[in-house]
């Protein structure tokens, strides 16, 4: 059986069930890289220039860890998920960048996802399926199954109030505490325990219920994005501005913590919008910026101080 490597980084948290359904239907075996460790991060950091954002460095580390364990590595280039809403250049150039900085990596399975060019999208997905089958109908069926399981995955998280790490990795998180905090940001920052220094369990350890963007329905996020920013500009804007705006507006949580990677282009503007909105609505809000130099003690202090502030305020 052909082995396809999936780096446990970036879009993995958002789309893994979709990819699994697709490759399963085509009869490929998936190899997911292990959770991020210090070595994985260090090997990624060594390959790319210093200015590159931390999540991309982590991604490269995962690709390196998959070398020798699979025949292909799946690296999609996601340009846009809806019309006139674009993604960060780093997602677009991801296959090209991976090939450039890791020349020894196995052949990449690339797919261009651009909802503005529907026709090219179909041929791109077919081209991806061609690696496994000559039958276009089989690819079509696989793609349908993939979309279906993606929908189910998303709906399940909203319905049951679960995080991707609970659904994908079977972790269980506590749902009782004396106060609640919404954690907003991209999934690759929120659910990678190495990157955020176990932020979720740290909060839960202090008796805080953690709510995440995945628990908000698509429609609510869209509406909040529209109110705050006049519609999405970036592909993953909803999980930051949409979710953050929703939690701030509804007041169902005691405070909002947003998490961004240092040097992240889209987040640099999104966090600013959120920051201004929280200020206007007079809600506790803080933004944690992460990179490879983030020290655990410093992060813990900031989180504890924020929780103390939130509790005193009540």
């Amino acid at each position: 059986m052909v082995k396809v490597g999936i780096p446990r980084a970036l879009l993995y948290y958002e789309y893994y069930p979709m990819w699994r359904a697709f490759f399963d239907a085509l009869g490929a075996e998936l190899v997911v890289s292990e959770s991020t460790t210090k070595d994985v991060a260090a090997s990624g950091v060594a390959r790319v220039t210093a200015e590159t954002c931390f999540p991309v460095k982590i991604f490269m580390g995962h690709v390196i860890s998959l070398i020798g364990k699979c025949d292909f590595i799946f690296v999609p280039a996601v340009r846009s998920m809806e019309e006139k809403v674009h993604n960060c250049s780093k997602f677009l150039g991801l296959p090209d960048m991976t090939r450039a900085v890791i020349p020894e990596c196995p052949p990449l399975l690339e797919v261009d996802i651009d909802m503005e060019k529907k026709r090219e999208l179909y041929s791109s997905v077919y081209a991806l399926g061609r690696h496994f089958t000559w039958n276009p109908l089989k690819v079509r069926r696989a793609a349908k199954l993939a979309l279906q399981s993606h929908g189910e995955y998303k709906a399940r998280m909203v319905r049951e109030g679960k995080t991707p790490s609970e659904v994908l990795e079977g972790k269980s998180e506590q749902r009782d505490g004396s106060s609640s905090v919404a954690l907003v940001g991209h999934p690759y920052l929120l659910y990678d325990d190495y990157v955020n220094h176990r932020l979720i369990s740290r909060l839960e350890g202090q008796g805080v219920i953690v709510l995440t963007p995945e628990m908000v329905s698509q429609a609510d996020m869209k509406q909040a994005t529209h109110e705050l920013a006049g519609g999405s500009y970036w592909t993953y804007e909803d999980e930051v501005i949409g979710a953050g705006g929703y939690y701030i507006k509804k007041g169902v949580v005691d405070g909002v913590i947003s998490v961004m990677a240092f040097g992240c282009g889209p987040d640099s503007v999104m966090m600013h919008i959120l920051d201004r909105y929280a200020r206007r609505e007079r809600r506790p809000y803080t933004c944690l910026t992460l990179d490879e130099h983030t020290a655990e003690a410093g992060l813990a202090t900031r989180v504890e101080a924020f929780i103390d502030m939130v509790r005193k305020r009540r």
Partner: protein
Amino acid sequence: MRIGFPHAGNVYIPIRTALQELGVDFVVPPPTSKRTLDLATKYSPEGVCLPFKLTLGNLIESCELGADTLLQAQGFGVCRLGYYARGQEGILHDMGYNIEMVKFSVSEGNKLLGFMRVFKRISGNASWPKIIMTLRFGLSKLNAVDELESLTHKIRPREEKRGETNQVFKEATLAIENAASHSEVIRLRREYTKRLQSIPQRKDADPLKVGIVGEIFVVLEPFSNLDVERELGKLGVEVVRTLSYSRWVKYSLFLNPLGVDEWREVHKKAWPYLKRDIGGDGWESVGEKVLHSRDWDGMVHLAPFTCLPEIVAQNIMSHTREDLPVLTILCDEQMGRAGMITRLEAFADLLKRRRTKLRSEGLLRN
């Protein structure tokens, strides 16, 4: 209604001319300075890129001069540019300026028509022929200045007396900026071309040839890149730069809609390494390196700190098979002139040695 607009290299020349000809009340913000940058960093999001900060600074300074209607570019690219007008409008409102932001697209749709509509709107419904004439007049000034500037790139490293080229070019810019008619622009262009060419040049000069590529704003705004072109010229390096606003206007506004793709060759060269448009000028940066690896001695790659497309380009660029030394300079508000000059000097030394070596092996074209 008083119009204000941000600086971006010499873009103020055609805008100023057009507004003047149309009889609109306007202000030209003071040239970008340390004060502009301080104001901008105070009110901008912390991690946003330098072009956002500098243009916001210009807009704040325009508001201080009484502007209430501001021009700003927008568009749907894969970079933050599309967010500039929106974000800056919000920040200015928060600061208490009651302004209106007139946005024009630089990335989609019929850009030429968009520009003309903006001018029609702010001029209080001037006639179309009048708008076309004034835009043509403004653009002829831009073309003249850009043409003279590319001539200075050749002359500066060869001049006998340091600083003479800069002096003549400064006079030329000022004269063209204030020219009253189209024919005067043509005359000045001819006159200053001659004057630049008659600057005494060293016979034995053998300047290095260094290409300048990168993100268009920082490449073309001398304040943001700390005058990298002049500093290179002082070091005896001939600068080659493809990007310019007159070229952008020529292709994006007039020729691209007709199906001419000025970057075709460059994109083709980038293809083995980068197969997709990654937004901004990233694709072109990679392609230019591959295209000119034999006829340039080196390349200076300029980008704002945290620029999305250029970081991808930077990562890919260093792994191409075609060998060309690249110095990437990331521009932000922390940048210091002395540090940059040291890096440029070291880079020029490296290039000189490399050229001597390659020449002795007979591997170089020039």
